[in-house]
């Protein structure tokens, strides 16, 4: 039984169909496979990217919280410093005022003393003139003896 020619043609048919499959079917199969690969690759890339994004966001939120904490501490510091300053200032003002009042009071007292002394001296002068006039039984003209009286009053005031 000679099947050489038959077998050769069968081989040609086989390669012909193989070519047909390669040309028309294989691209579709490969396309489906590659589409799947691409989909998976994209999904994995998206997943890793979102993971990275999450990490970044967490780092940034930590940074923001740290900054806010620093700011808050700073503000508290400032506030306490300022309050100390205000207290100090108030203390200073109060001390100055107190000194001023004391000084004023001193002045007042001194003025009053002087005035009282002057008044007293005048009174003493008047009394002296009156006493003298009583002794002399005559009127002494205060105008003519004003100089004398004034000297007397000054003497009393000084004493």
């Amino acid at each position, binding site marked *: *039984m000679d*099947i050489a*020619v038959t077998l050769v043609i069968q081989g040609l048919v*086989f390669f*012909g169909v193989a070519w047909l499959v390669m040309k028309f079917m294989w691209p579709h199969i490969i396309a489906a*496979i590659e589409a799947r*690969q691409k989909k998976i690759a994209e999904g994995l890339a998206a997943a890793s990217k979102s993971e990275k994004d999450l990490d970044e966001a967490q780092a940034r939120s930590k940074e923001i919280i740290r900054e806010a904490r620093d700011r808050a501490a700073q503000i508290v510091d400032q506030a306490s410093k300022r309050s100390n300053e205000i207290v100090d200032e108030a203390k200073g003002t109060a001390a100055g005022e107190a000194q001023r009042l004391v000084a004023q009071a001193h002045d007042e007292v001194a003025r009053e003393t002087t005035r009282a002394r002057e008044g007293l001296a005048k009174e003493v002068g008047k009394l002296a003139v009156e006493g003298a006039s009583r002794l002399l039984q005559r009127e002494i003209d205060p105008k003519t003896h004003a100089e004398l009286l004034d000297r007397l009053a000054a003497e009393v005031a000084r004493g």
Partner: protein
Amino acid sequence: MRFGMMAEENTSGGMTGYIKHHLTHLTVNQGHGVFWSIHLDSVIFKLGISVFFVILFAMAARRATSGVPGKFQAAVELLVEFVDGMVKDTFHGNSKFIAPLAITTFCLVFLENFMDMLPVDALPAAGKIFGVEHLRVVATADINTTVGMALGVFLLLWYVGIKHKGVVLFFKEWFTAPFHAHGIWAVLLAPINLLLRLIEEGVRPLSLSLRLFGNMYAGELIFLLIACFTLDAALSHVSTYVLGGAQFIAGFIWTAFHILIITLQAFIFMTLTIVYASMAAERH
């Protein structure tokens, strides 16, 4: 053991002899009678293809990555996803092995059918060099193979049925389904139900095995008929070139068309297995 029995058929020669020769299995007799004759070619090719399939998928599983898959892994994944989706749609029982079984069934039947795509004389001619007189490479074109697979499915259906319903309900349904009744009617309908059930049990493996065998056997036969265009042809004769062209065209068309048939038959075998398993798991 005797290789290449029925050698007397070769003497007739010509088309009939050629076709008969190609439809004869490489047979060993392990006893007396037809039952004990083993089709060595079907067994060897089925085993070889099974080993090839196992190695192929084991490689895919071993190299499987959860990252971007390679082309081979992506192809296997596409197949697995497709079959798994089909099983999820069709099979509502709680057996985990249906999808792997379906994939295995599909791949094995497809690969065995695929041997039909090789030039029909190539492997037998190669076998002749090594002294193998008869060689049929398409295991699914041997009714012993398809009946064997169908019997496997048959046992599987019983296993699935008993697992899902328990032994009592499984055998009770032989008498109570598909016609449900009460009282005396239940007794009267029991034989009818049993008869229908027996027919059903017989028809399922029969339809599975005969459909696959018939398609593959007929396909192989047509390949043989196409090969007969240039049988015993002499290169000196003009008709050889005309008939050779005809053989090429006919062979090309039939081989291309056969791609569909082998895929479809494998798919049908798998689908029916899933459907039968789903029906076996259902309570009536």
